[in-house]
């Protein structure tokens, strides 16, 4: 099967940012996204999602490297100073590149 290179950008952050992130991703060139509710923690905090504002999401975006970079820079610049944000990039292959 013929495969094509794409970037997977994974953003783990506070659920409250979901709407904004989706709008940002679309504006910066993403064709789509998926979101999951997740739990997690770090040295400083645990996010069990007990109370409404404590929920976390993981957002996955598959796109070209340039778009991934643009989204990641924007997210870090705009939100990282006040909200918990973790993100990482991964190289993946897809069968239908026009979908991403």
């Amino acid at each position, binding site marked *: 099967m013929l495969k094509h290179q794409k970037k997977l950008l994974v953003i783990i952050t506070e659920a409250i940012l979901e709407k*904004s992130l989706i709008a940002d991703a679309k504006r910066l060139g993403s064709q789509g996204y998926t979101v999951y509710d997740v739990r997690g923690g770090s040295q400083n905090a645990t996010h069990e999602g007990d109370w409404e*504002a404590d929920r976390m999401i993981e957002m996955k975006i598959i796109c070209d490297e340039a778009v991934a970079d643009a989204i990641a820079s924007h997210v870090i610049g705009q939100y990282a*100073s006040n909200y918990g944000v973790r993100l990482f990039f991964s190289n993946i292959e897809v069968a239908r590149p026009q979908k991403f």
Partner: protein
Amino acid sequence: MTDVVVLFFLLGLLARLVKSDLALPGVLYETLSIYLLLAIGLKGGVELSKQSLDAVIPQMLFCLALGLMIPLLLYPLLRRLVGLNGFDAASVAAHYGSVSVVTFAVASAYLTHRDIAYESHAALWVALLEAPGIVAGIALARWTEKKPSGQVVEKGARARFAWSALAHDVFFGKSVFLLVGGLVIGTLMGETGTAPIAPLFTVLFKGVLALFLLELGLVAGGRLGELKRYGVKLIVFALFAPMGLALLGALGGKALGLSTGGIAIMAALAASASYIAAPTAMRIAVPQANAALSITAALGVTFPFNVLLGIPLYLKLAQVLG
């Protein structure tokens, strides 16, 4: 005799303290939350349908004024006496300016349990008290940002904040939307119109409230461990501010000519702190604030205090005033 629902709260608290693995599924909590908001709104609306709006307008105005006033009163206390920075002070003030729907539910259950009458359209007060406190808190936070103290406002701090987006979230957020929606439906349909759904929304209410309080006990118990991080001053604030605010609410209720039960409810509402609508709104509008601090005060100290000791106290206050 304590109301049975309070014991469920204590059970949840105990579960967390003994590190039980008890956890209510998130979806259940969401469902119970939606149910409670609708049920409270519906009941209030049905009662409202039985009277003219004119009688109720002074009460509505008082609620709006109270909601706006409470953060303005608390902010200087939080800055000077508790020693919080401007953003945290504004956030905590907003939490206390808004209301806890569950505190209202427990207070009304407590009064009903004792056969003490109160204005049964009180859900209207809840709906009106949700938003103003949040708006005032945000205004205080904006004012903090602008102060010419040489404090640098980070670029990221502005985030994507826009008043219209915020107004949308505050007024069309789940809490206000369901409360007002329930009120409108109850008012339009009245007792007969809502009779078919009464078995779900009226008969089951207390049981659902008990389950919800179990969850809140778990969350509050989780917050207790955090208390030592924030210091004694915050705890003292979270214990005494409700009492002061209850007095304010009670005096207002007395001036409005409410029944003894109504005064007690107004006092309980003034003393309550939001932990659904306010935390969400604050996280968006004032991201510089420490969200955990506000919720620890509201849910870790004030809510248990109100539920266990406050409500009976406020009833006594109302009886003394009435």
